[in-house]
C-alpha cells in the first residue's frame, strides 16, 4: 500500500508542476489578418435570471458580427467561482473580460490580475467602484432615471386623487437604492405643487422576489387598508404584491408600478395586473459592451460609464408587443 502511494507521488507532482514548453522554432514573419480576432470572456452574476441570459446572448451575437468568439459563464453568485472564471480567461488570453461582479470588494484582486495581464476589463449591469482597479468602461441601466419614470407612472395612475403608496425595496442593491431615490424625487416634486398629495407611507423589504414581495405586500395591506399604490423595484416583487392584492380583493383600489420589463412582467402589464414598468434593455447593454471593446481596440476613446436609459412601458405598448401572447 505504501509503495503504491510513493509511486503515485511523482504523478501527482508532475500534474502540479510539469510542463516545459517544446523547443521554439525560429520565428519567421507572419502575415496578419487572423480570421478570428480572439475570445471575449464573460462571467455574469447568474444565468438563472433571464435578464443576464439576455445580456450574455446579445454580447455573443454582437461579438460574432465583429469577428470575436465569446464564452459566457454563470458565477452562480459565488464570487470565488467568478474569480476562477477570470483566472481561466487570463490563461486563455481573452482579448477582453466582461463581468457583473458578485461582490464588488472581493472581486478586486482578480480584476487587478487581469489589469496586470494587460487585458481590458468591463463591467455590465453591476458596477465595481472600488479603488485600485482599472476598468475600460461600466455599462449599466440608468436606474436613477428609471426610478423617475416609475414616479411619473405612479402620478399618472393615481391621477388627481393622490393617496397612500408603499415601496417594496431591496436595499442591498445599489441599483435599487437609485431607483427608489429617483422615484421619491419625482413624487416629492409632485407633492410640492399638487393639492392631493401622494404619501409614501411605507418602505418594506420586498426581497426582489415573489414570495418575499407577497408577504411584504400583505403586511402593507394590514397596516394601510386604504393603500392606493405600490412601487416594486423589480417584476418578481411586483408580481408577489399583485398576488397579495388579489387575495385581499383590492385589485380595483391599488395600482402597481414595477421595474425591469421581464417577459412575465410585460405579460402582467398587458393583462392589466401591473400598471407600467420602466423597462431595461439588457440586449442594448450587451451591444454597448461589444461596441466599447471594438472602439477601444481601434484606439478610440471610451467613456468611463455608459448608462442605458429605461423607457416606460404601459398597457398600450404591451398590446402592440409581438412577443407577448
Amino acid at each position: 500500500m505504501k509503495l503504491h502511494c510513493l509511486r503515485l507521488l511523482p504523478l501527482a507532482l508532475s500534474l502540479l508542476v510539469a510542463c516545459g514548453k517544446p523547443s521554439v522554432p525560429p520565428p519567421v514573419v507572419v502575415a496578419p489578418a487572423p480570421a478570428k480576432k480572439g475570445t471575449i470572456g464573460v462571467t455574469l452574476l447568474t444565468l438563472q435570471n433571464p435578464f443576464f441570459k439576455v445580456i450574455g446572448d446579445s454580447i455573443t451575437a454582437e461579438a460574432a458580427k465583429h469577428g470575436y468568439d465569446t464564452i459566457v459563464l454563470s458565477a452562480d453568485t459565488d464570487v470565488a467561482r467568478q474569480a476562477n472564471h477570470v483566472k481561466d480567461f487570463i490563461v486563455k488570453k481573452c482579448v477582453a473580460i466582461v463581468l457583473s461582479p458578485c461582490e464588488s470588494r472581493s472581486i478586486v484582486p482578480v480584476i487587478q490580475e487581469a489589469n496586470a495581464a494587460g487585458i481590458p476589463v468591463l463591467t455590465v449591469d453591476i458596477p465595481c467602484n472600488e479603488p485600485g482597479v482599472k476598468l475600460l468602461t461600466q455599462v449599466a441601466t440608468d436606474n436613477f432615471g428609471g426610478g423617475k419614470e416609475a414616479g411619473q407612472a405612479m402620478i399618472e395612475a393615481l391621477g388627481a386623487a393622490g393617496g397612500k403608496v408603499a415601496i417594496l425595496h431591496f436595499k442591498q442593491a445599489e441599483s435599487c437604492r437609485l431607483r427608489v431615490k429617483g422615484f421619491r424625487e419625482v413624487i416629492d416634486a409632485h407633492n410640492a405643487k399638487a393639492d392631493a398629495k401622494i404619501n409614501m407611507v411605507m418602505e418594506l423589504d420586498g426581497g426582489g422576489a415573489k414570495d418575499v414581495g407577497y408577504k411584504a405586500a400583505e403586511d402593507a395591506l394590514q397596516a394601510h387598508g386604504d393603500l392606493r399604490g405600490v412601487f416594486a423595484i423589480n417584476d418578481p416583487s411586483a408580481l408577489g404584491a399583485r398576488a397579495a392584492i388579489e387575495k385581499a380583493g383590492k385589485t380595483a383600489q391599488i395600482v402597481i408600478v414595477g421595474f425591469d420589463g421581464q417577459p412575465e412582467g410585460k405579460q402582467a402589464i398587458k393583462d392589466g395586473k401591473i400598471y407600467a414598468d420602466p423597462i431595461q434593455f439588457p440586449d442594448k447593454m450587451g451591444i454597448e459592451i461589444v461596441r466599447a471593446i471594438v472602439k477601444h481596440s481601434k484606439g478610440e476613446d471610451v467613456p468611463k460609464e455608459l448608462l442605458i436609459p429605461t423607457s416606460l412601458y404601459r398597457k398600450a405598448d404591451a398590446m402592440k408587443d409581438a412577443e407577448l401572447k
Partner: protein
Amino acid sequence: MTSRSSALSRLLADYGMVVVLALLCAFFSFATHTDQHPTGTDAARQLAASITSQFGKSARVLIAVPSQSDAAAFADTLEATLTKAGVTVVATVKGEPKDARAAMQTAASAGKLDAIATTQASAAWLVFADLPTDFPALGKPPIVQPQTYRWPNFLKRDNLLNIANQIAVIAIVAIGMTLVIVGGGIDLSVGSLIALSAVVTGVLIRDGFGGTDAGSFGMIIASLLAIAASGVAGAINGGLVTRFGLPPFIVTLAMMLVASGGAFLLSHGQSVYQVPDSFVWLGRGADFLSLPNAVVLMVLLYLGAHIVMTRTVLGRYIYAVGGNRLAAEYSGVPIRRVLLATYVASGLLAGLGGVLLASQLKSGAPTYGGMYELYVIAAVVVGGASLNGGSGRMFGTLIGAFTIAVIQNGMNLMNVESYTQKVVLGLVILGAVLLDQLRRRASQRV
C-alpha cells in the same frame, strides 16, 4: 501474473480514478491544443533577425505591445536588438490601442513604415485593421509577430498551477470530509464554516488587530482564532452525534444554518475587506519553488493526513468504526472519541479553508462557501470513498478534487457555456463513480 503487474492492478484497484483523471487531462490537452505565442527575449531576438533580413537595415519599424510586463520586456529586447542592427525603431508603444493610434499619427508625418512589430495580443488590435484608409501616409506596413508553436492551453504551467490553486480550498476541506465519511458520518456544515471562518478572520483583523495596518502576528492570531472557532463548531457537531446519538445529517444541517446565519450577523451582511495587503500571502504568494503557498499547504496536509490514515492507531480506528461499528466497539475501540476527532478535524480544516479563501480574495464575506459542501462530498466520493463508511483513501480524495477542478477548468478553456458545464460535470461525476464501482466489482470477482 508477475508481481509487477499485480502491483499495477492493485494500484488501479486503490486509485482507479487516476485513470479517469489521466483520460480527462489527455482529452483536455487534445481539445485545447492551440497556437501559442511566445513573448520571451528569444522570440524578440528572432523576430528582430527576421525583420532585418526581410526588410533590410534601412527599415523603419513601429513596435506596439500591450501594457503588460512580459510584453514590455519583449518590446525592450526587440527595440534594442533592432537598433543594434541599424534598423530605425520609429516608436515603441507599451500600452493600449489608443497609444498605438497616437504613435502612428506622429509617425505618419515622418514617412512610411516598413513593418509594425507586435505580440499576438496587440496584433488583434483593430487599430491596425484598416491602415491604408486610416493612415495612408504610412504605406502598407505588414503586421509582424513571432512565429507560433502549438501547445495545449490546458498543459501550460500557469494553467496547471491555476487548477491546483483553484481547488486548494475544496481539497483541503475534503481531507476533513474524508475522515468523517470514512468514519461513517457526513458533515454538511463545512460550506458555512468556510464563510464563518473567513468572516471571523476579517472581523478580528479589522476590529482587533488594527485593520489594514495589522502585523503578521495579529493576522496569524486572527486566523488561528477563526480556525479554532470552526473547530469548536465541529466539536459541537461531533458531541451531538456521539453523546446523544443524533443523525449526523440533521446535526450538521442545523450547524450549516447556524454558522451561515452567524457569519451574516457578524459581518452585517457586508464583505469585510479592511485587511492589510500582506494578508494575501497565504492565498496568492508563491515562495517555495514558485509553487503557490496554497498548493504547498494542500500537499503537506495530504501527506500528513495520509500518514494519519495509514500509519497511526487513530487512522485504523476510524476505518474500524466506519466499517463495523459494533465490532469496533467490542474490540475496545473508543468509538465516541474517534468520531468526535473526525468532526473536530473537519471543522478545523473547513476553518483553514475559510482563512485561505479570505486570503485569496483579500476579504471575508458571509456568501463564501455556498454549495461547497456538495463539491467537497463529490470530491470524496469520486475519489473512491464509500458513503457507508469504512473505506476511502486520502490520495483518492485528492484525485477526486482534481477531477472536478480539471473538468471545470477544461470546459472554461474550451468555451463551453455554463448550462452545458453543469450537465457535463454532473454526468462525469456520475460516470466516474459508476466506472469505479464496476471496476471494483470486476476486481473482486477475479
